[in-house]
Every structure is written in C-alpha cells, then in structure tokens.
C-alpha cells in the first residue's frame, strides 16, 4: 500500500507558526527572537511556546546573550530541522499534486 503524503507529515513541523519559524531560520544563519515575533505576528509568550516545542524536537537551537546591555535571544536551525523542513515542503507539494489531480 503506497503511503499517502498526509501520513508522512511531521506533526511538529506541520503547523503554520512552527513551519514559519523553521522557514525563516532556514534563510538565516541565526534569527533574533524580536524579528520572529514581529514577522509572525505573535506575542512573546506564544512564540516561546513554539520555540520550546521545536527545541525539544532538536530542530532548532536557542542561544541567549547580550548585545551591549540589551538581552538578545538568537534561534538557529539544526541539520535535523533543515531536513524536516525540506521533507515538509516535499510532502506539501505531493499533497497539492494529489488535490489537483482529483
């Protein structure tokens, strides 16, 4: 039995906000918390929750530090995160193909 693309989706990545975080992180060497918050239109608390999920899954790393006196949090995508993102995009394209065939 061939597997339907929907069964290949990773539940952690197949979520709008988390997919967005991974997408932005993929385009950068590291992305700042404030940038993500603004770009995704989220509250700090909400973004933190999503980041925790991604970090626990090993898809991102979170690095806290200071720039001058200002506290900064930087997020970087891991190798596993890149692979999962690529897989998610692939599965989404397969799903779209299947929808359009019908």
């Amino acid at each position, binding site marked *: 039995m061939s597997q339907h693309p929907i069964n290949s989706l990773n539940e952690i990545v197949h979520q709008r*906000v988390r997919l967005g975080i991974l997408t932005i992180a993929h385009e950068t060497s590291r992305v700042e918390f404030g940038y993500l918050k603004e770009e995704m239109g989220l509250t700090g608390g909400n973004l933190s929750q999503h980041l925790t999920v991604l970090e626990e899954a090993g898809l991102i790393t979170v690095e806290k530090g200071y720039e001058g006196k200002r506290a900064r949090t930087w997020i970087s995508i891991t190798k596993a995160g890149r692979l999962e993102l690529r897989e998610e995009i692939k599965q989404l394209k397969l799903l779209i193909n299947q929808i359009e065939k019908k």
Partner: protein
Amino acid sequence: MTNSNSHMNDDPRDLLAAQQNLVNRVRTLQRATWFPLTIFAIITFLAIPIERLSHRTIGNCVAKIAVSNEPHYCRIYSISGLFYWPIALVIAYVVISFFYTIKTRGLGAETSAKKFVIPGIFISIALSLASYLLFLFASGHHSVLGIYFLDPSNATIFRIIGPSFSICLALVFLALFEKNYLLLFFDLLYGLLILWPPVRGVKNNGFWSLAPNRVIDGGFLLMLGLAFYLVQRRDVKYK
C-alpha cells in the same frame, strides 16, 4: 504565517504560498547587492592611478608589427597591478563579508555571505596566479607573447584571467547567494562588456592605456550598484 494571514486555514496550497512569501520577505530584507558592486567599482577606479604609476614590461613584438602593421597588443601587465588586484580583491571580500553580517545582524535575521565570499576569494587568487604565471612566461618569451597579443581573438585569454572577469565570475556567486536573478542578467551584460572585442583591448602602450577599460568597468559597476540600492531600498520600504 504573517500578520496578514495568521488566520488562514491549513490548506497545503496556503501553507506553501505563505512559506514562500516568508522566504521572499527575509531574502528581500537581507539583500545588499549595491554594497559589493560599489566596493568593486571603487577598487576598479583605484587601479587606474596604480596601473598608471607602476612599472610595466613591454613585450617585444616590434618585428611582427613592422610586417603586419597591426595595432599593438603587446603590453604585458603592470607589475604592481599583479600585486594590487589580489590584495584589493581579498580586502574587498573581507569588507563585504563583515558588512553582510553586521547589516543582517542589526535586522535580526543574520546571514553569512560565505557562499559568495569564499568562491570570490578563490576565483581572484586563482586568476591572479594565472596572470602571474603568464607574466613569468611572457617575461622570458617576448616574441611568443607578442604574436599572441597581435591576434585580437587570442587576447580574450588575457581578458578572462584579468581582474574584471574575476569580479564578473564572483558576481554569479553573489546572484546565487542572494537568489537575485536580475543581478545574474546584468552580470551577463557585464561579462559581454569585458569580453566583447570592440569595447576592449589594449591598443597602445600609453601610460593611460588601461584607464578606459577601468572607467568602463568601474562605471558599469557603480551605476548598477546605484540602481540596486534604489530598487532594494524601495522593496524594503514596501515589504
């Protein structure tokens, strides 16, 4: 995924479109094509006085010229030019690398320009080395080089290993790094400008003989840099 579409459903088409939209927004913000172009224009203009003031070795193609009455294509690279270009290019890449890092860090979406800088440094060193080896070869084989230069079609090799073409090749990597296909198009034009015989070629041994080529190259890069600056500033404003 952004403010404007945070309430959309999870239709794969919407997800993919939103994902692509995010990619474009980040890339638009990170682009700074104008900066490397301006830096390359500056080092091209700076080469004019350096090449003018430096000692040059001239190939012995007098016999051939006397027979064919062809214009001179005999001049060999200026010695300081051989040293100026690799040093200037490597410094330029280091400055560009710092600029990208600092600019994008300030925006909160840090990126490293190493995908452009590393190939750029490699190309400039490799072509400079090729120029240097050719210089060594030519120094001992004036007549061979003279004949070589006398044929304008063969002179293409000297344009290919020259600094302008080194910049042209590096700009391909800049276009790929920034996913900037408009730059790729203009870089192709720049390549044609460098290689197109009617525009190029050192046709005399005058002290300013290389200056017209440098003015054309530097002017092109500077104008392109200015155009990209205006376009990218507008893009970021309407992001």
